Every structure is written in structure tokens, then in C-alpha cells.
């Protein structure tokens, strides 16, 4: 086992990217994710890579598109307002089937909002974000270890499916420090990048584009992308459960709030309340089948989010009326993080109504 380090979540994500073989980073600073570019600006030049602080978020996502089109593992990161600016580029990457990793350490909004923890970018992340009806895999870490592990995983998913992949965190998982075991990169068989552009004289011409004007060409392209999303739903769903088997109330939440919920559930169990946790790790593909099974078994689902209600819509679609769905959310902003004690109160009230 490697030595345990003690690092910030943001640094862990940057370390995971390097371990995954990412050698190109393009970004523009914004709180609360600037530790990522800070770390990479220090490390990448020594590894023969490139770190570019671009003139804007729009420039940096297009640099990512360019590096990826050349077949290189590359990444950008930002926080909510900056991620909004990158949406055009993400849509172009999705349309051009280009791999790449985008980390969003989201902050509160709308607009410039504030720097505090928030999960109000759920819709933007999982429902496309940019134009054109695409999806990208979205991974939601809830610990420093997962910031590292899931960032590595994001690079593999990106290459396997030729798609941009988003890691969605907030200032809790980005700014907190925990123990980290810097695991070696998992060995996976990845497809050859036989589509990457190579410049003049590289043999047969290769074109990377998202413009399809021929008769039926764009429809076929969209069906191809759609089929890819179905394979992801079949193969790439990740989730975690805690005391869910005999639960009569199933609490569900992603990322930072799931950590708070887990402690609240442990407290509720001490009071004899049969409560469990279901934590989606992939937000797209959403673990709809597993969540429906666990939710219907419990009969009642309580969705907790650091927003006014977003993932709750996907939970309702998943259980499809076969379980009662309650919601507890906190709009983003300073002092808005619920404590385990507050969530315990919500759990007690939900249980009393059974």
C-alpha cells in the first residue's frame, strides 16, 4: 500500500489527472477550484507537459478540444460561472466525439452568486448543458480519495466512449483535506485513437468535426450518439449504499451532502429508525434501476440536495410513482450547509409520517 497523504480534494483531483497520464491543462482561475491549476502549473512543465492559463474560459475549453483532437489526454477545470462559458465548447466536443475531462468545483449561483458549496449545477451537468441534446458522463465524488480515483476514471471513460466527461464537486469536497492513498492508474484496455489528427504527411486525411450537412448524415450521427448513451446506462452506472437493505426510509443525495446524510443516518439508526442511504456516484448515467429497486423496497425516498430540487426529478422518474418521494433542499449560499443534526431532524419527521 502506498503511503497515506493528507491533501485537499482539489489537489487530489490534479494528482489523479497526472497519474492518469494527463499532460495538458488549460484553464482560467476561479474560486473555489484554483488549487487545481496551481498544482498543475507547478507539476506539468517538469513532466514534459503543457500548462496554459488561457485568456478566458472560452479559450481554454477550445484549447482542450484542440489537444484532444490531436489524441492527447487533456483537462480543464473551473467553477460554475466559468463552466457556463465552456458549454459551447463542451457541446462541440460531444458533437465531434472528443474525449476530455472537465472538472466543475461548483459554487452558488445564479450569476456570479458566491463561493460557497452548492449543488445547483445538477441540471446543467446531466441534461446536456450546452445545445444539441447530448449527454456526458458526470461523476460525483464525496471524498478526497474519490476526487483522485474518479478523476482517473473520468479519463478512461472519456477514451472508451470518445466523450467529454465531467467531475462535479463543490467547495466541500474541493477544499477539505483528508487522507489520500495515491493508487496507481488502473490497467484498462483502451481503444486506439485512430481518429486523431496528425498534420500534413501523416497518411490518409482525418477530420474531426461536428458539422454534418449531407442527407441523413446528422440524423445517423445523433442515433450513434444516442446508442452510446444507452451502452453507458448499461455498463457505467456507479452507486453506493449504506444500511439500505432493511431500510424503511431511503435517503438519497450525491457528493458532499451524502457525507452529511450518512452521519445523520448513523444517528437515526442509534434511535432505532430504519433508515439507509443510496448515493449515486454517476449522475449520468443515473442509477435509475438500482435506485428504483431500493426505493420501492423501502417504500419511501427522501432526496437531499444543496439546491431547491433538481436530482429529485430524476428520482421521481426512476421510482415512477411506486414509492413516495420527499425532498429536503437548501438553496446555496454562506451558512447554508445543513448539519447532520438538522438532517436527523428531517429524517425523524419523515419516519414519523410513515
Amino acid at each position, binding site marked *: 500500500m502506498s503511503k*497515506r497523504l*493528507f491533501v485537499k480534494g482539489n489537489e487530489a483531483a490534479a494528482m489523479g489527472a497526472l497519474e492518469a497520464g494527463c499532460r495538458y491543462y488549460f484553464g482560467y482561475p476561479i*474560486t473555489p477550484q484554483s488549487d487545481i491549476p496551481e498544482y498543475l502549473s507547478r507539476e506539468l512543465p517538469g513532466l514534459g507537459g503543457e500548462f496554459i492559463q488561457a485568456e478566458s474560459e472560452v479559450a481554454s475549453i477550445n484549447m482542450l478540444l484542440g489537444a484532444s483532437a490531436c489524441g492527447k489526454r487533456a483537462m480543464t477545470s473551473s467553477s460554475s460561472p466559468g463552466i457556463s462559458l465552456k458549454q459551447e465548447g463542451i457541446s462541440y466536443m460531444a458533437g465531434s466525439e472528443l474525449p476530455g475531462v472537465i472538472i466543475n468545483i461548483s459554487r452558488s449561483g445564479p450569476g456570479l452568486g458566491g*463561493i460557497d458549496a452548492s449543488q445547483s449545477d445538477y441540471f446543467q451537468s446531466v441534461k446536456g448543458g450546452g445545445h444539441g441534446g447530448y449527454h456526458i458522463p458526470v461523476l460525483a465524488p464525496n471524498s478526497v480519495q474519490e476526487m483522485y480515483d474518479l478523476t482517473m476514471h473520468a479519463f478512461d471513460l472519456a477514451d472508451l466512449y470518445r466523450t467529454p466527461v465531467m467531475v462535479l464537486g463543490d467547495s*466541500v469536497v474541493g*477544499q*477539505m*483535506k*483528508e*487522507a489520500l492513498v495515491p493508487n496507481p492508474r488502473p490497467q484498462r484496455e483502451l481503444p486506439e485513437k485512430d481518429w486523431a489528427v496528425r498534420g500534413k504527411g501523416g497518411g490518409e486525411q482525418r477530420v474531426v468535426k461536428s458539422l454534418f450537412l449531407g442527407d441523413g448524415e446528422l440524423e445517423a450521427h445523433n442515433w450513434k450518439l444516442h446508442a452510446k448513451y444507452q451502452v453507458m446506462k448499461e455498463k457505467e452506472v456507479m452507486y453506493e449504499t449504506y444500511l439500505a437493505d432493511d431500510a424503511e426510509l431511503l435517503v438519497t443525495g450525491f457528493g*458532499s451532502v451524502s*457525507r*452529511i446524510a*450518512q*452521519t*445523520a443516518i*448513523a444517528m437515526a439508526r442509534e434511535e432505532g429508525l430504519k433508515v439507509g442511504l443510496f448515493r449515486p456516484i454517476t449522475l449520468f448515467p443515473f442509477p435509475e434501476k438500482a435506485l428504483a429497486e431500493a426505493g420501492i423496497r423501502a417504500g419511501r425516498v427522501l432526496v437531499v440536495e444543496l439546491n431547491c430540487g433538481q436530482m429529485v426529478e430524476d428520482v421521481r422518474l426512476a421510482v415512477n410513482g411506486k414509492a413516495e418521494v420527499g425532498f429536503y433542499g437548501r438553496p446555496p449560499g454562506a451558512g447554508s*450547509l*445543513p*448539519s*447532520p*443534526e*438538522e438532517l436527523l431532524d428531517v429524517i425523524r419527521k419523515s419516519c414519523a409520517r410513515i
Partner: protein
Amino acid sequence: MRYDLMIAGFGGQGVLLAGNLLSYAAIEEGKNVSYFPAYGVEKRGGSATCTVVIADGAVGSPVVGNPSTLVVLNQASLERFGSKVRPGGICIYNSSLVDVSGLDRGDITLVPVPMNEIAMELGDSRMVNMVAVGAYLALVPAVGTASVAGALEQALPERNHRFIPANLKAIEAGGAAARQKKA
């Protein structure tokens, strides 16, 4: 065992370094730990708090609503968090700057430590946070003092390693003051 602690003060008092130091010591002892900072956009003068959870098993929530121990370095933090200490818990406060006469908490142990005075006697007011760490360790055995001494090397940037002996003295002095007040 699971220990949770909130340290609060204003930016510049070294709140975050104090939390970091205890966390590094816990890592050194092979324990699990979460360190969660919260601070304003100001570099100095704003509020700064951090929550540290040290556990043999899983840490669980890095956010704690009712900490079992609160260490407050300034008045504003007492007013904000004093009511939140878990019943039966401990509040260690910097009696150089904090007046607790307005706090109605008969259900917790209040421990005054004149942190600024002690730090000034040692020759540097910036040692306030180390005095606070010493006071905490004297009352709560979350980590051993020996591990904290080792952890200073990791928590402090190398250019400040020359101050480690002075920091250790401040930790010792804080501990002595807290033990005396509690007895």
C-alpha cells in the same frame, strides 16, 4: 473513538494552521481525519473557522452542527458558535479577547486561556494558535503531543521550520494554562 472539534477566530489568527496541525498529527497516528475550512473572501480580519473530525473508523460528515469541543479565539466566534456546543461539551476560549459573561451555558465546561498574553510572554503574538492547540490537547486526547511535534514539520512550510522549537513551547504553555484552569 471519534473526536470533533471546531476552531473559530478571525483571519490571521492561525485558525486554519491549528486545524491542519492536529489533522497531520492524526494522519501520523494512522487515524482517519477530515479537515474542512470555511473562511470569507478577505485575507485578514474576516471570520475563519475549521472543523476537524478525527476517528478510528469512518469520518462520516466533515460538517458538524454541534461540536463536542469549540475553541474560540475572538468574540464574534463565541457569539456565533457558543450556543452550538454539544451539551456536556467543552468550550476553550481566548480570555484575552473573549468575554463569556453573556453566554448562558451551564451545560458545558468553559475553559478560559489568556492566549494573547501567553503568546506575548513567549515573545510573539502569532503563537496564539499554538497556545490554543496546546490547550485543546491538554483537555481532549484526540492525538498525542508527540505526534503534534512531528506534524509541525508537515504543517509548516520549510522556511518556517526554524520556528518549530518556539511553537512547541507555545503548545506546552497553552497546555499548562488549560490544565490549571480545569483543576
